[in-house]
């Protein structure tokens, strides 16, 4: 049971960004992917989720043995993959509550155990409470007139509602103050119980609150080093210099 990325190559506008990237993430594992700007971290996450402009030119993506490489993004979501966006996209005039309810109904088409609005409200309340997220946020329109921290918290709440098998969290820690960072990290800790997680980050600071099982360094679309939390500490102190100057392999 794993999210298995094998020899994945990705191109954007005819330019290859990701080169034969391989990684296997098992349930309950937290993998951290770090790398300098422009190393292809976000491109990888968009390609995994099926963004139409990020073309997969080689390799495969498997979820628990099922090939999802060429599915579109809603099919990938339904297969159990989730992406928390670095910059969540505003959908004007659609309130978060209705948005989440729509998502929920899409995932539970064949079973209407939570059919009434009241029941759904209770479900959202419980999830929000568990994750220490203010439930008032669901009244806002999706990612519109919300702070960066609020948007990231709602990404976590959305993930909790969907309960994906595997989640890619793209810079979920960027732009958060300490309190928000703690909330988000604690949330991920809870969600890890049901999911395998790939956490993409620039900074090691979220790792104070979240113990990763593996840390990978991505440079120019390739993993150049893999280790444990110590590797993140090393990067924090020394930067990526060592990996950037090293010859590509």
């Amino acid at each position, binding site marked *: 049971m794993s999210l298995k990325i094998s020899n994945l190559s990705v191109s954007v506008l005819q330019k290859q960004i990701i080169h034969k990237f391989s990684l296997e993430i098992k349930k309950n594992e937290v993998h951290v992917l770090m790398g300098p700007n422009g190393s292809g971290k976000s491109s990888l996450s968009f390609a995994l*989720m*099926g963004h139409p402009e990020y073309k997969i030119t080689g390799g495969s993506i498997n979820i628990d043995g099922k090939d999802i490489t060429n599915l579109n993004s*809603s099919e990938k*979501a339904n297969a159990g993959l989730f992406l928390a966006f670095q910059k969540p996209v505003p959908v004007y*005039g*659609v309130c978060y509550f209705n*948005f989440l309810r729509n998502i929920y109904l899409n*995932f539970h088409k064949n079973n209407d155990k939570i059919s009434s609005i009241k029941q759904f409200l209770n479900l959202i309340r419980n999830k929000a409470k568990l994750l220490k997220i203010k439930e008032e946020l669901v009244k806002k329109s999706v990612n519109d007139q919300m702070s960066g921290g609020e948007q990231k918290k709602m990404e976590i709440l959305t993930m909790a509602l969907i309960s994906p098998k595997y989640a890619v969290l793209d810079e979920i820690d960027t732009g958060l103050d300490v309190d928000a960072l703690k909330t988000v990290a604690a949330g991920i800790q809870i969600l890890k119980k049901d999911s395998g997680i790939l956490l993409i980050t620039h900074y090691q600071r979220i790792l104070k609150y979240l113990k990763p099982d593996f840390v990978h360094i991505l440079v120019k679309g390739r993993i150049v080093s893999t280790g444990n939390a110590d590797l993140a500490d090393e990067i924090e102190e020394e930067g990526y210099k060592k990996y950037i100057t090293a010859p590509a392999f």
Partner: protein
Amino acid sequence: MVTKKNSNSKLNPKITTGKQANEYQFGFHNNVKPIFKTQKGISPKIVNQISWQKKEPAWMNKFRLKALKTFIDKPIPLWGGDLSQIKFSDIYYYLKPIKKKGKSWNEVPKNIKETFEKLGIPQAERKYLAGVETQYDSEAIYGSLKKDLVKKGIIFTNTDEALSKYPEFFKEYFGKIVPPADNKFAALNSTFWSGGSFIYIPKNVKVDLPLQAYFRINAASMGQFERTLIIADCGSFVHYIEGCTAPIYTSDSLHSAVVEIFVKKGARVRYTTIQNWSKNVYNLVTKRAVVDEEGTMEWVDGNLGSKLTMKYPSIYLKGRKATGEVLSVAMAGNNQHQDVGAKVYHLSPETSSRITSKSVSKSGGRTGYRGLVYVAKGAKNSNIRVSCDALILDGKSRADTYPTMNINEQDANIEHEASVSKVSEEQLFYLQSRGIPKDEAASMIVNGFIEPIVRELPMEYAVELNRLMKMEMEGSVG
């Protein structure tokens, strides 16, 4: 983006027989035989037949004949949409399906009743409505008004009946805001008008529940020329709702209504329309309101159907501190042109107006916002806010904006915003990444876009509009 399937192919959830899956959702056609039908085309003889059938006063017959002359004299407008394909000689101008107006639901003929049941009117009445006045072809055949409204002196009836019962109102108000010579289609309506609603709200009476009427064309090449007259006396309030649905036919149909509204001192009138005419109907409507001191007029206008709609609800702010608002939403798909907008005339000091227009074009459809704001000399301290936003779903579709401002007073306070946007790949990707299929994602974006208008509608209409928009959106992004 490519249209995968005809947007009409979806069934309205209300009609769940499953048999009409490939028809226009309200396109069922009941086999009602009209008891009286004029010949096709236009002539004084046909006008006289109508007057005779209606047993109307001689002055109305004269009014019609004069309007006929005006209609013939006026050229077809060359602006707006393409009107050159209307064959005026190939249209029936009057049809009378049954003899008498039904007083209660039980008296309404069975097959006509079935049509209404398919439209869900009886349920709507039970749940929400104070009164239902429904036009079937050219005559209103069913109307009811709750007793407490009658007690308050409210008149809500079809316009033909009102003419015979309350001639004094007609002499004072009929054709006074929209004279036949106003435009070619106002003249056409004045010549052949039949049915529509007449409403009088006495001084200081506030009607809590919306009054409602449905209109429906149910015969091929049948023109429908309903005429609505609303008089809201000083300090009164009424919300009138008109919902239009029509079956689909191969030959082109024409709908040309005239609505005149008098808002007296301190009164408020809200007029809501959701039109979903079938895609072969020319919908050419003149709607106008005159507002006295401290009165308020609100037009809420939704345009989804028709081949071509040309409609610019107008407000004349005649009295000091009068206010006016136009909220309009339009959606144009394949072979549709919605040329809609608003006109506001500030004729007195301290008058204010707000125009909010939202349009969605897709699958090669075309929308246009055509607006006029006029501030007369002496209308000091007027406030004007215009915002029009267009959303374009694909490269084949088009949205135009034609705003006109004619300001003759220095200190008018004017805000004007306009935007044209496209549904972005990023929004679609974001929604799809949450497991929402692409067409549903697009309709979610569209619903969000029109939300500021939908918010203003009564609940059941908001639900209906969202559902209609969703149906239109199905399969519209490739």
